[in-house]
């Protein structure tokens, strides 16, 4: 993308503080990135929820999308999924504009979000069976067995999903998100409801999946250690705009902070 680092300013109400570099971007970019977000804007009434956001996610990368509440992360992810149509700009996944031609790529991607639940009355097995068939998985039963082993679902496979603990539900939701072995995976706070031990366990499963599949992951999180552990690159948003991008270590060095947590807090206050 030619204008990945461009932030057009003709419509801007709030110019970027000069001290906030926004120019880093992945350098090992292939011809077609897995996700390409270009001049993405979403306006609700008079409020710009997302304001000229640009970034790309090269194939095989894990990128963290960070920001406080109301930063525009969920709206950005919803536009990348094609659930929300941008006011201006575009979000492309595997080369397809998600506002216009999302059905060409939906079978190659998947997502997990705390805003969404699996039908509570269906058992875990039934839910995985339904979504496996929806995604056109060729041998659904075998895939469910693999996921059962990977995510230790054996004990809960025939229990109603609604009766599971929050942590168990998260494991099932992540298993559902991997049912079609997606090339592109969108995760919104994937470990938010897990204890630290279980969260690390899920992260290890995601890392294993990413390495085996070479998948692209876009991850939204408030958990900075998680982001540092999983992500090759980070995009930080505030008030609907990207305020910094870079590799986690680079950002820590650039802002002269101890860790990504401090970077996050600093940017949330100054941006």
């Amino acid at each position, binding site marked *: 993308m030619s204008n990945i680092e461009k932030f057009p300013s003709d419509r801007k109400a709030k110019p970027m503080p000069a001290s906030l570099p926004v120019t880093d971007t992945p350098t090992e970019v292939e011809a077609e990135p897995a996700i390409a977000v270009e001049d993405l804007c*979403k306006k*609700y009434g008079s409020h710009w*929820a997302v304001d000229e956001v640009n970034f790309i996610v090269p194939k095989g990368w894990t990128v963290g999308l960070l920001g406080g509440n109301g930063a525009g992360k*969920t*709206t950005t*992810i*919803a536009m990348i*999924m*094609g*659930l*929300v*149509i941008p006011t201006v700009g575009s979000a492309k996944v595997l080369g397809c504009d998600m*506002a216009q031609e999302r*059905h060409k790529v*939906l*079978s190659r*991607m*998947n*997502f997990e*979000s705390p*805003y*969404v*639940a*699996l*039908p*509570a*009355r*269906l*058992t875990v097995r*039934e839910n995985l*069976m*339904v*979504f496996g*068939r*929806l*995604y*056109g998985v060729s041998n659904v039963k075998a895939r469910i067995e693999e996921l059962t082993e990977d995510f230790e679902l054996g004990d809960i496979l025939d229990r*109603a999903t609604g009766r599971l603990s929050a942590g168990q539900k998260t494991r099932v939701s992540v298993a*559902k998100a991997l049912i079609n072995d997606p090339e592109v995976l969108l995760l919104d706070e994937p470990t938010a409801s897990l204890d630290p031990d279980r969260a690390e366990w899920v992260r290890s499963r995601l890392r294993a999946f990413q390495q085996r599949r070479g998948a692209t992951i876009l991850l939204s999180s408030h958990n900075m250690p998680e982001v540092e552990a999983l992500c090759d690159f980070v995009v930080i948003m505030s008030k609907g705009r990207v305020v910094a991008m870079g590799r986690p270590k680079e950002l820590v060095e650039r802002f002269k902070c101890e860790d990504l947590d401090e970077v996050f807090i600093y940017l949330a206050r100054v941006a």
Partner: protein
Amino acid sequence: MRDSLNRMAAMTARYYYLLRSSWLRLLELIYWPAMQMLVWGFLYTYLYDSKSSMTSTAGMLLGAVLLWDVLFRGQLGFSFTFLEEIWSRNLANLMMSPLKPAELAASLMLMSLIRLLIGTIPVTILTWLLFGFNIYALGFGLFAFLVNLVLTSWAIGLVVSGMVIRQGLGAESLAYSVMILLLPLCCVYYPVWALPAWLQPVAWSLTPTYVFEGMRAMLLDGVFRADLMVECLALNAVYLGLGFTTFILLLSSARHRGGLLTMGE
């Protein structure tokens, strides 16, 4: 095509699992029509036994109740099956899957039919056994009536579901209330000529009117009005097309407005 059928089969399985998960849900499908039929069945018996001038209309009344229930339950079955996705916060999962809107609509239609059959068949048999009113004696006419009413119920269900997608759960009550608007206009219990002249064209623009007029012709005069059924079918094709177009437009509008991801929260 095969992928499409697989996805519709997956959705049908999803709704089958849901029905299977609770015998109360299954019972509820039969409970309301059965209770309603008991009330009207006793009224039918009373009118029939009283040998009053109302005797000839008693059977018509019961037939009208049964057919109205097909329309009402058909629409409820469609809309409630869709609402299940909102209540369970599953809509975004479906919208993010390769399932296309037309496939979702087809699955809802199939499920509406299954729910309707589960609710209606036992009730019609009950009516026959308890009150001696055999609606199956209408033969092919009954089939034509049912097809037309079910098509209408799907067209309305598509619009109601589209409104829920667009407006959120605030539009949920439409699933119950929209049919009541039709009740006085589509002449369920009285002929079209009973309406004021200015309202009669409105009645003839509604597909159920043709069915209830056809039913009266059959029960009173023993005549199957094929002309009415063909007109009704043509009108239903238009309404179904309009219903699906409205559903797609409202879905598109919801994608512009945002909120699909958090729907049901």
